[in-house]
């Protein structure tokens, strides 16, 4: 009898370790409480919209040696529709992928001649939120190509790599145990559907990298620096993992 029980446990354990089936994919929105969902659904109650408003101002603000704003080249921000769902994307000049924050800072340096925003600064997050907001409702569609593949593989490897003093991988919580509770909080599937996200715990908008750092500190690992290649690779894998899910920026999460 004991052998049989062990066998059953082993079998369910093995089944749970597989990747989440596409039909079971659920956004963090579905795991959030009704109050958080109500905040996200109402644009005048969603505090993330304050960041979007700030980003709208920055979009039209001239910066750097070129004396140009984002709008001077890109025109109306509606031209950014469908951009955020493709990021992180490969930048040939750097031979590595850039996430949306990285792309904005790249654009500032290369095309505006302005100093890049500091990592996770309010302005960078706000402008990213404004750009991503243009793609709200569109399905996540990171590109798959030979150039991105090594970074995607790295991201996948990092997602499954045990790390930190708690010796946990991302996958052990977010693939194997989603829907269960970690203390009082429900473990979501780690789909980056609403970044930059307004997190009530932060009382501010924050990027996906900030969220990743939170999780890494949680397992007592050394977090990646903002813009580190590993962080971008992990973002890339997470976006690829969430392929087809609609973007919710700016989402509200507990």
């Amino acid at each position, binding site marked *: 009898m004991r052998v049989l029980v062990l066998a059953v446990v082993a079998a369910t354990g093995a089944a749970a370790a597989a990747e989440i089936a596409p039909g079971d994919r659920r956004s963090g929105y579905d795991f959030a409480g009704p109050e958080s969902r109500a905040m996200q659904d*109402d644009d*005048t*109650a969603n*505090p993330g919209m*304050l960041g979007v*408003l700030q980003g709208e101002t920055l979009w039209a603000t001239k910066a750097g040696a070129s004396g140009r704003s984002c709008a001077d080249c890109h025109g109306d921000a509606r031209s950014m529709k469908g951009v955020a769902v493709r990021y992180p994307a490969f930048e040939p000049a750097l031979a590595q992928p850039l996430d949306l924050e990285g792309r904005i800072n790249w654009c500032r340096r290369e095309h505006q001649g302005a100093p890049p925003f500091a990592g996770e600064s309010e302005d960078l997050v706000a402008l990213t939120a404004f750009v991503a907001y243009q793609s709200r409702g569109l399905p996540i569609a990171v590109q798959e190509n030979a150039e991105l593949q090594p970074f995607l593989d790295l991201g996948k490897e990092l997602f499954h790599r045990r790390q930190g003093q708690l010796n946990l991988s991302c996958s052990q919580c977010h693939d194997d145990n989603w829907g269960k509770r970690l203390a009082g909080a429900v473990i979501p599937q780690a789909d980056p559907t609403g970044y930059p996200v307004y997190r009530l715990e932060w*009382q*501010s908008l924050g990027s996906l990298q900030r969220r990743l750092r939170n999780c890494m500190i949680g397992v007592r690992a050394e977090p990646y620096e903002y813009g580190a290649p590993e962080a971008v690779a992990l973002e890339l894998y997470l976006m690829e993992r969430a392929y087809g899910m609609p973007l919710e920026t700016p989402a509200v999460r507990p």
Partner: protein
Amino acid sequence: MARVLINLPARAKRGEIIEIKTLIAHPMETGYRLGPTGAAIPRDIINRFLCTYNGEEVFRAALFPAIAANPFITFFTVATESGEIVFSWTDDHGETQTEVRQITVE
């Protein structure tokens, strides 16, 4: 100027109860937190919110350090006549931000 989002109906029937939602960007620094050097970060909160409808006070709130950043205040009033609804937030520095919205009552 802090960024503000205000949601109220542009038109209402006389006597109708309307919901007003306000959201303002503010750090609401409690004064209890310590900065990187160990020194206390000085308190900086919005401590007063006031709403007047054609000059008459219809809603007032006192805010305290336990209120989260970007305070969201929602309340109801009765649409009595067309005119101006004025919102003002006052912070610890004594600075007041005022926003005005029009309402048409028919």
